[in-house]
């Protein structure tokens, strides 16, 4: 009898709390988005699964000795996993399009308006009762506008670990929603003639340029923003391994097995922050709302900057490629290409949009560094 009671008490049914049920549903929704809607599945699948595991009563995944506890402590609170992902992303990035047309870096700069405007917005939300964002919280939330997953997770783990779950969910969800969020804004801010603009073919970029480029970026970061060197440094290391051509086996591993292993763990570890007490509050709603604002302002900033540059540039610039400056590589570049094709079926913008796209990665890493330096 006593044993039967023990047995009953060891079922989940006897211990469920309402918040856990809701959070497991959130996990299920993330799985649905990943599997059925193909929303950033590489991260949302393990994250959704981690959210479910985290909220199982009695299972203790996030308590001392639990699997997700170890994963979080080892890889996320130390910042190691996002940095390894960043190294792998660096090893997968071809800066050719950017080096061939460097002024698109300014588009990557303009799109960071999404970050800093959101910071202001997050502070503004403090007027709502129940929301109390410090400047650190606001900075961690604002980085969603960088449209770069590892950067967001890295910064949130440093500035506002208790908001990490909501920030990561918002960042990856909106990154997946880029094909829905961006086009209306892009169309609203441009006319058909602008969208029809064809750009000149990019010049060939040599190997020497590609090898020097990550070193130049690293050097500038060292000089002007050491706080960004963990992110930028690992990114440049990956890119240097790729372009140098002398360590192809390391580059291949960084792009494949190492980033895959880290992604599984990163997703699970972030999911472990999706517990009811940390996620089910009005602040999460605020973060989700701010995330949408951040992406929209970033997109608008990029497009408007491109329009401005087109006025002064010798060679024509299609304003649509400005939207790719938010990063969300390579989704945003594809969106620019697609919207461009609607206006002019012979206008292939993909390669031109890759420039601002990777510039956006650098831009948001720089923005993260500024926030770390001034707020952290």
């Amino acid at each position, binding site marked *: 009898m006593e044993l039967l009671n023990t047995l009953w008490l060891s079922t989940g049914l006897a211990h469920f709390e309402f918040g856990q049920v809701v959070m497991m549903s959130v996990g299920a929704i993330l799985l649905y988005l990943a599997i059925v809607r193909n929303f950033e599945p590489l991260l949302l699948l393990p994250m959704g699964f981690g959210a479910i595991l985290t909220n199982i009563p009695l299972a203790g995944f996030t308590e001392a000795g639990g699997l997700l506890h170890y994963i979080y402590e080892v890889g996320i609170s130390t910042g190691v996993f996002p940095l390894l992902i960043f190294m792998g992303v660096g090893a997968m990035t071809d800066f050719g399009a950017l080096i061939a047309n460097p002024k698109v870096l300014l588009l990557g700069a303009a799109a960071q308006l999404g970050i800093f405007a959101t910071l*202001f917005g997050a502070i503004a939300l403090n007027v709502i009762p129940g929301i109390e964002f410090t*400047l650190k919280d606001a900075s961690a939330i604002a980085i969603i506008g960088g449209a770069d997953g590892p950067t967001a997770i890295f910064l949130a783990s440093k500035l506002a670990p208790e908001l990490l779950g909501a920030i990561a969910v918002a960042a990856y969800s909106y990154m997946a929603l880029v094909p829905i969020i961006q086009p209306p804004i892009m169309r609203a801010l441009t006319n058909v003639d602008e969208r029809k603009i064809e750009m000149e073919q990019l010049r060939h970029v040599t190997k020497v*340029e590609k090898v020097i480029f990550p070193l130049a970026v690293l050097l500038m970061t060292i000089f002007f923003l050491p706080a960004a060197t963990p992110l930028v440094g690992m990114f440049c290391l990956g890119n240097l391994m790729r372009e140098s051509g002398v360590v192809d086996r390391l580059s291949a591993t960084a792009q494949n097995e190492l980033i895959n292993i880290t992604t599984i763990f990163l997703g699970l570890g972030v999911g472990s922050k999706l517990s009811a007490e940390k996620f089910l509050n009005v602040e999460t709603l605020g973060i989700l709302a701010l995330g949408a604002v951040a992406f929209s302002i970033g997109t608008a900033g990029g497009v408007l900057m491109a329009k401005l540059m087109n006025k002064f540039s010798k060679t024509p610039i299609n304003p649509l490629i400005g939207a790719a400056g938010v990063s969300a590589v390579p989704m945003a570049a594809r969106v620019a290409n697609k919207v461009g094709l609607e206006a002019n079926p012979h206008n292939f913008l993909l390669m031109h949009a890759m420039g601002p796209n990777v510039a956006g990665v650098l831009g948001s890493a720089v923005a993260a560094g500024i926030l770390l330096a001034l707020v952290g």
Partner: protein
Amino acid sequence: MENLTQLFIEAGTLMLVGMVFVYTFLGLLVLIINKFLAPLAKAYPDPVLQPKRKPSTTKTLSTEGVSPSVVAAISAAVSTYRQQNKKS
């Protein structure tokens, strides 16, 4: 409310300083690429690789674009045959 005003001022300053810094940083990078990298491209062009002529593996269904080996084989076969015919 004083505290909130203070926060707003800080956030506004951060926005301003941040955007200026980001523009400066990436703008400098534009300069560096234009002034230092682009000249490098001229000084150290990529070595011209003899494009290793991979034996083309595309399969063609039309008469045009038949692979060289097939053409060579046929030319040889036909000219051999022609000579044999002449002799006879």
